[in-house]
């Protein structure tokens, strides 16, 4: 699966898992911040939902909470994490 495809699927899962009914897939851009005062403005419970989503839908696990802060930045960073971990698993 290429990065574009992963990002497309990620956005669909983010909307579904977080019940972001006010958003469409077009509304969420690859570099839109997930947390903070701009972008999606998600909170700590959402970060747990996203962690579970990555594990269930993409088979990748965030084991270190500090690592999570760097991964759950935007759709781009999440896609990079998925690709890096898939590559590790394939080797």
């Amino acid at each position, binding site marked *: 699966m290429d990065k574009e495809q992963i990002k497309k699927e990620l956005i669909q899962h983010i909307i579904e898992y977080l019940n972001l009914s006010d958003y469409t897939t077009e509304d969420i851009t690859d570099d839109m911040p997930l947390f903070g005062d701009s972008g999606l403005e998600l909170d700590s419970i959402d970060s747990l939902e996203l*962690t579970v989503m990555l594990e269930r839908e993409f088979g990748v696990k965030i084991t270190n909470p500090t690592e999570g802060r760097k991964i759950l930045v935007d759709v781009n960073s999440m896609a990079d994490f998925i690709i890096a971990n898939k590559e590790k698993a394939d080797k």
Partner: protein
Amino acid sequence: MYIIKTSCISPQKTHDGSYANDIISYNGNKYNAIEPDYKGLIRPAQLRRMGKTIRMGIGAGLPILQDIERVDGIILASSEGGLEDCIKFLNQIVDYDEGSLTPTNFVQSTPNALAGNLALMSKCQAYNMTHVHRGGAMENALLDALLLFEEKKADLLLLGNVEEISDYNFNIETLAGQFKKEEVTSDALLNSQTPGTVCGEGSSMFLLSNNPDNALAEIMDVAQVSFPHKEDILDFIIGFLSRNLLSPEDIDTIIIGKNGDVRTDFWYDYVCDELFQSQNQYSFKNIVGEYPTSIAFATHFACELLAGKDAPEETIIREINAPKNILIYNHFKGEQHGVILIRK
């Protein structure tokens, strides 16, 4: 114990008080709640995570708490709480082999999640209790409040119920014969003469005080009995009235929980024929459906009658004069029977 404020979400437009002249008719055996627009009341980030039970309970409870500095406790009644989320959570445990589970379903999976949410949102760190005794939960919640007031442990309480239609309980109860197999309109429900009833949902909330100032109504007493014999129910009601120094003749209005189930509606006919032949008589389940804590809706309805509001035509079995002393008599599946005495 006095009711100062009340609020209600139900299968009728009770949330804005416009339902009496605009009753919604239903066909079939599910009466889903008409929910208000929660925007402005609940933050979008919280709202999108809320299951129906929490949403309805917050939607009914929070407006009551606005403008109130503090309450001395939050008491809820719910037979099953947010069952939809609970079942989702339990299914995830199986589906994902006890692996990572989503927190949202988990935090809403217990009946007391609503009372907790109301406490968090209103910053109430006082008494917090949820009663879950199926068809007796609301009566027990009221009894809890009566005792707190009597023991002078509270001056102001938020008390209410919540119940949702979940696929799980609806399917199980349908298999058990609780709901009608044939399609019946709400207009014909009470005279359907067939087994089963219709499933309802909703949340009624009350601000209760030990001070009569600005009260809508006074709840004089409440009682509940489980699995009575038919011959015992009259003694139960007469005893309940007499401990409040009343007789059936002192009651001018009875609100009954008739639900169109031919197997259990005889209780109401029996009580009304024997004790309340010439009083005002109202029903309510033909407009909101049956659920374990539906007596909470009857209490809300009683408050509206005592405030002088016209009863919807669909609820009037017999109307003679303006209600002043109301007895609510309700049972759940003919097993748990409850009475509430309420007056202006």
